[in-house]
């Protein structure tokens, strides 16, 4: 088995998931940080649920929902002619759910830490809401965005249980690094398992270390 293919696939999956989560998670995080709706606690609970739920629960429901008999899967089959389970697209959907809180929560925390007056000052200076968001809110929330991106990426790399349940272990499509390592261990190929595990171990340390270094520099500026 190719050593790098699963690692590359994991990186692709993590990257696509991260991009989608930042794009979709930012408006969600903004709404959560600003709203006083009585639905806020419920929305927060839904966002945080993947942290608490075992991957088996997500995997089990996704297998049913994304399958050709499931409500999402059926629609997808009609639209594209292929099924979502055992496909890269299916893994992206699964990962977006699985890593959602890791992207949304740091961004939301950053938004909530913004002084209210800063925003109001921008508005009174005539900036549109969107303009104020991009020229004031985003630059002041860089730490949150960096944390959200790094954690969404890294957490998707670490995904295992959900992929095991809906991936189908297809080389180049759904056999990501964590699954390949599991196969190597199960088939007693400890040398290959070590090589990949060490790479992931090193990588995980480097990205998290980088994130904390960045956050410290940023906060002491």
């Amino acid at each position: 088995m190719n050593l790098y293919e699963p690692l590359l696939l994991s990186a692709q999956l993590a990257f696509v998931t991260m991009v989608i989560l930042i794009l979709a998670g930012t408006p969600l995080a903004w709404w959560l940080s600003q709203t006083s709706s009585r639905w806020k606690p419920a929305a927060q609970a839904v966002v945080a649920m993947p942290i608490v739920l075992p991957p088996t629960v997500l995997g089990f429901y996704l297998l049913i929902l994304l399958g050709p008999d499931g409500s999402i899967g059926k629609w997808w089959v009609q639209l594209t002619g292929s099924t979502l389970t055992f496909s890269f697209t299916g893994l992206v959907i699964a990962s977006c759910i699985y890593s959602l809180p890791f992207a949304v929560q740091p961004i939301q925390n950053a938004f909530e830490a913004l002084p209210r007056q800063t925003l109001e000052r921008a508005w009174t200076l005539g900036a549109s809401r969107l303009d104020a968001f991009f020229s004031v809110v985003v630059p002041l929330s860089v730490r949150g965005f960096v944390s959200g991106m790094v954690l969404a990426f890294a957490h998707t790399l670490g995904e295992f249980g959900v992929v095991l349940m809906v991936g189908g272990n297809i080389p180049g499509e759904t056999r990501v690094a964590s699954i390949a390592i599991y196969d190597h261990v199960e088939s007693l190929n400890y040398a290959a398992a070590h090589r990949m595990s060490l790479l992931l171990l090193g990588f995980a340390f480097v990205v998290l270390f980088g994130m904390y270094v960045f956050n410290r520099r940023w906060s002491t500026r």
Partner: protein
Amino acid sequence: MRPANFFLFFALVAGPVLAEDPVSVAVASNFSRTFGELAERFSADTGIAVRTITGSTGKLYAQIVNGAPFDVFLAADAERPRLLEVSGRAAAGSRFTYATGRLVLWSRDAENCVDALRTSHRVALANPLIAPYGRAAREFLESAGHWEDIAGRVAYAENVMQVVQFVASGNAGVGFVAASMLNGPHMPAGACTWPVPPQSHSPLEQQAVLLAAAAEDKRVVRLFEFLQSDAAIDIIVRNGYGDMR
């Protein structure tokens, strides 16, 4: 029986037997239901309590290598027991084939399982790298000349249980499962089953070993003898394994 009564009964009848540690048996998942029947029979006959630990052969093997306190290992293959014997973790000469698995093609919806191999969007088999039934399935597909056609449509499951999951949930049209699973209590109804010719793949020998630390334990030796008795083989064959007598 009310719980309180049950405990009283348990304390009076089973108490003396349980006073010593039960015999610990690590059982490959595909055999766990069959072994449940065997253990019940064995305990009823001898008064020796048996504790069952189920899991995949690979995981149980790793646990044994790392010192898990099992007395007997019923694997789904011949390889892990052989490795345990070679490394001295299993009692030398204790290894034997307790069951021979039978591979079955199974579908939830298709009328004809063999046709479904050609037409299904996905064909599920256990990962040949780690699961004996997956390796056998692949060998059959190769020997029948289907592999080239099917390779791009395969979804690999972790084991035969997950093959059933993939097929039962409609995610795969057809899959290779173990015959021993077909009559299981939670097995969904299938539209077709087709026994794969056993000569088309290497035999699914499931071997047992006595682990070295338990080799002197008379109770464990009795269990081992029981597993090779006619009474036990009858139960094993009734559960869908091949009859080697």
